[in-house]
């Protein structure tokens, strides 16, 4: 069993204070290490996640981060899988511990997605997240591809812009309770309907922001954890899968099939079903993507009915993105998956700083990410009190 004995996130946002991703990584790591009760010399593996060297201006970032964190001597690696980079780094560390190659690992995710390059440059780089030789050459943006995918889903489920507004309002409202979030806002539906169309049906307010930030978790094989952290939340299931990178090559462009496959693997390894999950941090790069993900993960049979019943709001059947998600908390690419896992661990343990921390935390939580238009999927199930 692998336990999450330390978890921390920096503020997500557009940093203008002269700090760099190396500072944020160090801040997140030191805080997580302090929570874990370990010394830095106890860490024998560092798994970093960062989506792109273009963002950091640093090839082999794990080497400099290991140096900055005082982890020279530990095995170090950088894991990359687009938006799923953070979860895949978590999985790499979990697998290293399960296999006996490591006993205690630090997973540190970071990216300066907002402050180091212009928004136009970052947007152009994100076009390379898909098939850069085909869709990328044609000039399709991330929003264009997500919009086309969502149109299929929207039509077959009978969704409309009211449902996109509901997701936007909920995630940004949740972020208001998260002091470290990038975009805590109280939007009205009219404000959302009036925001510029980026790629129909997506408007500017349906999109997640470009953010700077870092997150870190400390993982330990259960028996190698300090006594005071032996009851920390555990990672009970992990799963990953992939789909065709080009939307047009898929038989069902509106379905997030790799997410469904990843979830099945994670649930099988945990001996759980989606109904056992009591809280989820879901990859909401766009408002509609959250709805596609909720269904793909097996959390609903009728998305409209569940939205009308407020099933995914705080206090609902399955609270989704209490942190605010990518749309509200923010989206520093490499930090997203690590941050989601950190959020889940903190919520399960009753230690999250958000005002939305459930008074009676559930037993299981899910962290869900993907890269591309749900091309590379990775999910992690955490449990507490086991």
């Amino acid at each position, binding site marked *: 069993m692998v336990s999450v004995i330390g978890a921390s996130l920096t503020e997500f946002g557009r940093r203008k204070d002269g700090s760099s991703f190396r500072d944020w990584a160090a801040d997140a790591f030191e805080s997580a290490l302090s929570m874990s009760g370990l010394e830095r010399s106890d860490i024998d593996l560092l798994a970093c996640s960062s989506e792109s060297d273009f963002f950091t*201006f640093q090839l082999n970032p794990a080497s400099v981060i290991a140096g900055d964190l005082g982890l020279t001597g530990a095995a170090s690696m950088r894991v990359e899988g687009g938006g799923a980079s953070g979860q895949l780094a978590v999985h790499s560390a979990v697998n290293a511990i399960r296999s006996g190659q490591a006993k205690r690992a630090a997973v540190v995710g970071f990216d300066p997605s907002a402050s180091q390059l212009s928004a136009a440059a970052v947007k152009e780089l994100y076009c390379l997240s898909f098939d850069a030789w085909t869709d990328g050459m*044609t000039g399709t*943006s991330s929003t264009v591809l997500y919009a086309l995918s969502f149109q299929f889903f929207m039509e077959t489920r009978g969704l409309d812009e009211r449902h996109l507004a509901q997701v936007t309002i909920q995630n940004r409202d949740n972020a208001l309770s998260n002091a470290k979030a990038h975009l805590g806002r109280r939007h009205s539906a009219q404000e959302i309907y009036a925001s510029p169309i980026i790629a*129909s049906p997506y408007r500017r307010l349906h999109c997640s922001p470009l953010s700077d930030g870092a997150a870190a978790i400390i993982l330990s094989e259960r028996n190698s954890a300090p006594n005071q952290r032996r009851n920390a939340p555990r990672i009970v299931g992990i799963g990953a899968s992939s789909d065709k990178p080009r939307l*047009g090559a898929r038989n069902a462009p509106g379905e997030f099939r790799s997410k469904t496959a990843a979830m099945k693997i994670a649930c099988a390894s945990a001996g759980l079903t989606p109904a056992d999950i009591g809280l989820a941090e879901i990859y909401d790069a766009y408002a509609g993507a959250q709805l596609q993900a909720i269904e793909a993960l097996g959390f609903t049979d009728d998305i409209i009915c569940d939205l009308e019943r407020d099933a995914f709001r705080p206090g609902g059947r399955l609270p989704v993105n209490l942190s605010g998600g990518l749309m509200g908390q923010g989206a520093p690419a490499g930090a997203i998956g690590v941050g989601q896992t950190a959020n889940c661990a903190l919520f399960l343990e009753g230690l999250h700083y958000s005002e939305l921390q459930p008074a009676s935390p559930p037993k299981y939580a899910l962290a869900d990410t993907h890269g591309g238009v749900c091309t590379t999927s990775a999910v992690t199930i955490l449990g507490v009190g086991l």
Partner: protein
Amino acid sequence: MIKRELPLEYRLAPGWLTPWIESVVRGETLARSCRACGRISFVPERVCECGCAEGIWKSLPGTATVIRRTFGADGSFGLVRFDYADTCTVVELDGFELGNRRGKLVPPGGHLPKLILQPEFGAASA
């Protein structure tokens, strides 16, 4: 702040995609047909869904039907199916009005292999 520019000029060798890239630049529609099952992919897939990695190049007429379209600040794009292809692809829609559903691939007018669809002259509107 450290200001640093990194000018990069890539020279991308298209490898197995060379025939396709060169055809797109000419405004032609070259698809890949699976040797085992005959499935036609455009954009070409190196390995077919049936698992066969052998394919032959096959010219298509270049006409397509728009399945989905999106427009806005990021431009006008569509998910289209080229006639005789078994897969769809994303293209830029140039000069399309709301009623246009049929189009034809045109040369991109530069060295980049961009997939650009213009309304097919005389095609019926939906």
